[in-house]
């Protein structure tokens, strides 16, 4: 079993697992992702308001998306946990609001439009995401808690201000500052520029 400690030091094993699913529908890799992320997703979903039955329903839907759309995953754009988190978050909104099913399946695929493969550069990209994790690891706990409440427990700025008794303006500026730092780290990578220009040619 993979532990949190060796996640950053070796090449992220889930990058390969997703690749194996995309290329040869490898059930062993699928099970590996399920075993690691399933219980964590359940924790995320229940912390952000889902009950147990709904949390498992969302996990099931999320896993199905991972199985069918693994070829959309691009290791130069996001880490595996980020990709999986984003899918689960979208699925949660879909299921909680019981809107038409087709809607968010399409959004999932659109999160990260497929790019040409950059598999040989994975190690470098891992370093980028490792840098982000390191930055977050080093943040003072009270600042990290603000980010956790906002993006993991899905609380609004107002709710966070109420809970922490920190003025709303300060909550916003602290979250913004941390995000700007992370954005800067993401931007350091040349591939992000490729993604943007391919996106740009589409909207222009």
């Amino acid at each position, binding site marked *: 079993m993979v532990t*949190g400690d060796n*996640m950053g030091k070796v090449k992220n094993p889930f990058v390969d697992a997703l690749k194996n699913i995309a290329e040869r529908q490898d059930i062993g890799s*699928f099970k590996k992702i*399920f075993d690691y992320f*399933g*219980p*964590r997703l*359940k*924790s995320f979903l229940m*912390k952000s308001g889902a009950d147990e039955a709904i949390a*498992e329903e969302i*996990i*099931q839907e999320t*896993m*199905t998306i991972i*199985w*069918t*759309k693994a070829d959309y995953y691009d290791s130069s754009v*996001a*880490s*595996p*946990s*980020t990709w999986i*988190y*984003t899918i689960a978050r979208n699925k949660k*909104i*879909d299921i*909680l*609001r019981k*809107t*038409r099913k*087709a*809607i*968010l399946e*399409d*959004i999932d695929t659109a999160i990260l439009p497929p790019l040409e493969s950059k598999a040989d550069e994975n190690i470098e990209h891992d370093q980028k995401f490792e840098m982000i*994790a390191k930055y*977050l690891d080093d943040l003072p706990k009270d600042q990290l808690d603000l*980010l956790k409440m*906002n*993006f*993991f427990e*899905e*609380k*609004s*700025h107002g709710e966070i201000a109420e809970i922490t008794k920190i003025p709303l303006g300060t909550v*916003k500026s602290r*979250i*913004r500052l*941390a*995000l700007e730092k*992370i*954005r800067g780290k*993401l*931007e350091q990578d040349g591939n*992000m520029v490729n993604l943007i220009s391919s*996106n*740009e040619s*589409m*909207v222009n």
Partner: protein
Amino acid sequence: MTFEILSTPVDSAASLLFQRCLAEVDHENRLLNSAMNEVGGYFLNKTDEISLSNNLWDKVLDQAKNVKSHSIIDEEYDPLLDHLPVTLKSHLKINKVKWKSFKDVKVASILPKENNEKLELIHVMPGAKIPQHTHEGNESFLVLHGSYSDEYGSYKQGSVQVRSDDHNHTPVGHAQTGCIGLAYTHGKIKFSGKFGKLLNLIAN
């Protein structure tokens, strides 16, 4: 403003779709959005685990084996789609929308109305003027393509304007490009000019 919108947890399909489109049409927003997802992914890795029901893996495997990855590629060509973010584009390829025409302005509902929330695509023809109106509730308008101007300024692609019910304006589409935008409304739009009463009847 975009930071506030992007970092506000969403709870409906309409707000999610709006947020995704906002993240897509602007480079900076795209990076900011990736940064937020990375934060979510970081916490997903760090969070405690909650054990899953014993039969969940069997259910997941069962569902994964029975689902066919549907292709979102549709050969039918609509030049309007070229101007839209990927998220919206793939949504529209699956869910056909009906346009309502009001002279030089076309409006299409993107999602079924839910809890007084509306998400609409607005296409203002080049040089077309929308009669003076206020907004009932709040409207966030994201410019996806082209630009428009009103009594207060002009707004280009990627910008968002948030308007409440006391805001009265007369938007005009750019003379060459016109304007395509996404309007996320809580409440009905209210026309207040000369033909206001009649337009209110038609629009609502």
